[in-house]
């Protein structure tokens, strides 16, 4: 088979009718509009007279003029340029790209959720407050924490909230601790969130088996340390087997343990972070609880705490009062304050609640079981061909490296780009940082056996291509509208908006 043939015939990704599409501004024609206003039923006013001439602007640069059909075609065409879970396997490690049920979308669009206002009277938002109360309670059951706030708008804001509560807890006890321990395999958000609280970061090295060891924590633990931030399962997809001893070491010196819940999917109904010694943790509703990732949000990052941290929860807190009425409690003297203009990303609460109620306890456990089964199955099919830096039973995800391909000149980036030709979104690449050339693969429970087999076949075929025709892999992808965009140029000469030609 010639290289040209190979460029055509792989995997699921075949060629169909596809459209180039200019920027929306380049489609603009003066005089078009895609909007109709009702006739004004009150007297028209002169803005310059109501306000003042100098308060009024002239035109609005940067907006296009289009009819509705132009707008619909423009964005429909753009949509066809995206890979998505609804199109195929999207094994982006640590992002839990599971199926997003359609029922959840329908629920979030009910007018009593979508068209209601955060500051309307409590008596007229009882259904919403009950949903919050019940979702908090169910998330507390899942995590083994005592109380939950839904307010943080994403995982990183949840981390920020959690570290703020840790700081408030120590300050309340008259302690000024200055450091936070972060394992070297952690998400970048962990140290960034701690730094927003003016903590110094102390990196803790993972062991040669990829695990965090109690003795490594003991070596850096002191009375200066406010907290350890730990992700369990770790970003290597490994359960931190020494978690209980690690938490005991931190607690013994007065520190707290923060749990990054990005990888909670593996533990649903299996084990609870609150039972392992975690004091405070965030969840990602857009990962574990199936709310859509939306091309980069909105997410939602609820935080669960053990009772000693409950006084510091963000304000307001939803309570159930006598008679079953729900109310917002703002009388929280030790609260860290507000993190959000309203209650958080409420639309995600509705979706996550629908998901929990669809699954029930058995369904949740089944998610964890099948997610872990899928990851271990894929690993079994790829082991031997790809290098496995930490080869043991994994949880919901695992990490490969490009070491076995070193003699071919093909790298992780090339494998990722060639996967696109086979119809797959690539895994997370070059993360965690402790694995050189990492490919971090999280299939989730949503994928079937035959779907996993096709994906494994693609990765095995790419490894064979790397030996037979490395250039084919190094110049991939070949099936996309654009290939290997120049990121260096984008950063050196930033063009961050469209401007009309002079």
């Amino acid at each position, binding site marked *: 088979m010639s290289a040209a043939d190979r460029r055509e015939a792989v995997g699921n990704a075949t060629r169909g009718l596809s459209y180039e599409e200019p920027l929306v501004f380049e489609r603009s024609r003066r005089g078009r509009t895609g909007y109709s206003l009702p006739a004004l039923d009150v*007297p028209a006013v002169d803005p310059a007279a109501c306000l003042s001439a100098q308060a009024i602007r002239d035109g609005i640069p940067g907006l296009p003029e289009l009819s509705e059909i132009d707008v619909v075609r423009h964005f429909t065409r753009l949509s066809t340029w995206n890979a998505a879970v609804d199109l195929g396997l999207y094994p982006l490690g640590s992002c839990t790209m599971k199926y997003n049920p359609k029922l959840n979308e329908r629920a979030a669009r009910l007018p009593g959720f979508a068209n209601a206002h955060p500051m309307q009277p409590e008596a007229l938002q009882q259904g919403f407050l009950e949903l919050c109360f019940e979702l908090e309670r169910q998330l507390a059951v899942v995590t083994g924490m005592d109380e939950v706030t839904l307010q943080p708008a994403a995982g990183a804001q949840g981390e920020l909230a959690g570290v703020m509560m840790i700081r408030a807890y120590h300050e309340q006890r008259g302690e000024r601790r200055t450091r936070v321990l972060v394992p070297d395999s952690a998400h970048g958000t962990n140290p960034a969130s701690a730094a927003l609280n003016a903590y110094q970061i102390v990196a803790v090295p993972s062991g040669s088996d990829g695990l965090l060891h109690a003795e490594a924590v003991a070596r850096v633990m002191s009375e200066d340390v406010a907290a350890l931030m730990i992700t369990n399962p770790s970003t290597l997809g490994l359960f931190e087997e020494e978690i209980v001893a690690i938490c005991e070491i931190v607690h013994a010196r007065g520190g707290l343990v923060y749990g990054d819940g990005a990888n909670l999917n593996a533990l649903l109904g299996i084990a609870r972070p609150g039972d392992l010694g975690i004091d405070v943790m965030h969840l990602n509703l857009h990962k574990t609880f199936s709310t859509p990732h*939306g091309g980069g949000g909105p997410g939602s990052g609820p935080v669960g705490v053990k009772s000693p941290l409950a006084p510091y929860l963000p304000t307001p807190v939803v309570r159930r009062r006598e008679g079953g009425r729900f109310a917002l409690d703002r009388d929280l003297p030790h609260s860290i304050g507000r*993190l959000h203009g309203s209650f*958080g990303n409420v*639309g995600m609460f509705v979706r996550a609640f629908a998901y929990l109620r669809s699954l029930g306890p058995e369904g949740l*456990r089944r998610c964890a079981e099948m997610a872990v089964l899928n990851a271990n199955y894929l690993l079994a099919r790829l082991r031997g061909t790809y290098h496995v830096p930490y080869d043991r039973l994994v949880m919901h995800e695992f990490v490969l490296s490009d070491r076995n391909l070193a003699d071919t000149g093909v790298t992780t980036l090339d494998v990722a780009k060639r996967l*696109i030709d086979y119809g797959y*979104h690539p895994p997370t690449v070059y993360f965690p940082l402790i694995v050189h050339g990492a490919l971090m693969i999280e299939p989730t429970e949503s994928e079937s*056996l035959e779907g996993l087999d096709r994906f494994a076949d693609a990765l095995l075929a790419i490894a064979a291509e790397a030996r037979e025709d490395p250039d084919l892999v190094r110049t991939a992808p070949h099936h996309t509208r654009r290939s290997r965009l*120049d990121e260096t140029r984008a950063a050196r000469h930033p063009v961050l908006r469209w401007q009309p030609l002079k």
Partner: protein
Amino acid sequence: MRYIPHTEEDVARMLDAIGVDSVEALFEPVPAKLRLRQALELPPALSEQELLAELGALAARNAHTGTHEWFLGAGTYAHFTPSAVDALVSRSEFTTSYTPYQPEISQGTLQAVFEWQTMITGLTGLEVANASLYDGASAAAEGALMAMRTTRRSRVVLSAGLHPHYRAVVRTYLAGLGAEIALAPRGPDGRSAPLAPLVDAATACVVLQQPAFLGCIEDVAAAAEATRRHDARLVVVVNEALSLALLRAPGDQGADIACGEAQSFGVPMGLGGPHLGFLATRQRFVRQLPGRLVGETVDTEGRRGFVLTLSTREQHIRRERATSNICTNQGLCLLMATVYLSLLGPVGLRRLAEQNLAKAEYAKARVRATPGLDLPLAAPTFNEFVVRVPDSGAGALARARERGIIGGLDLEPFAPELGPAVLVCTTELSRRDAIDRLVAALAGRPA
């Protein structure tokens, strides 16, 4: 379980390939004493049909724009959204993708973000804008943090007109960083009192909301003059983004940073979220921006395309030295706004803003003509204003509710010095007869 495809036969084959004899054995790395021995104490699973009925019953216990006439704004605004917005944003190629790390198969999201960045720079009169932030409140906090980074100062002045929830969020974000926060007073006409006396050589920024929380239109140019004298930054916060279509752009009046909430551009009120934080600034501060940025580039064959760029500012590269900890932001909401603004265009958006203004001016005229009501603040307003009522804000709003109207916000907890008063918002959804009924209800007169 309808979301999980595995048959028992599949499971058996997969276990065999792995070399373990049960699903339970896969969890051997979790020490046995930590594993749950019983099912989580959660309610049992519901069918789709049962669940939709339960959720429908919960939703039905919330008032919404279909059950009441709506005059409540205060940072979250009831506007009409064209049908094409939800239709396009619902395409699952947009909803079920993630952060565009792989540009070859994310050009749809990347181009839409680039278009949004362009639109927000045009609306704010500034040169660069990020992809989005969580909401207006956190955008205000990020604006203040950015001003602190670019000045290496730690004193922040908040205008009296900054939304009280935004003020609270700024305090929360700055609490751990040793910042000093000063509150500027409100002048008698509702606008900020002159800011110059509050700005000194230690001041990082003034955070000024436009229009202010009580609806008044601030003198942004005067605030810019006050900050410029000490090389402090002026951060203009906007939470009714539609006002940008009518009022002179913050960047054209000397703002260094314009940020806030763009929910008004086609994003549902949704009980307060998800909404759409934005942040724009001048070119010289681009490397201090928080959050994601999309830039234009070319591919191997010279074809135009878009990528995430200037990532060395961000947490996944820079870790504790990043400009913010933001990872996931509000991608789908910025798409709603980009579609919305594409539909309206500059002319439609301006007419819409003028219609909002006209409704408010009509309502204010009715208030002035109604015994028992008055307008305590003299400054000009856009689509929101304060009405003083005869008895109490709560009483006036209760009368409105009896007539099927959510009449606004009771200002007693927020501005008790105004006496009994409510904050009223009119938009294109406010019909004349509903405004008349609202005014009568607030005054305690027959409908």
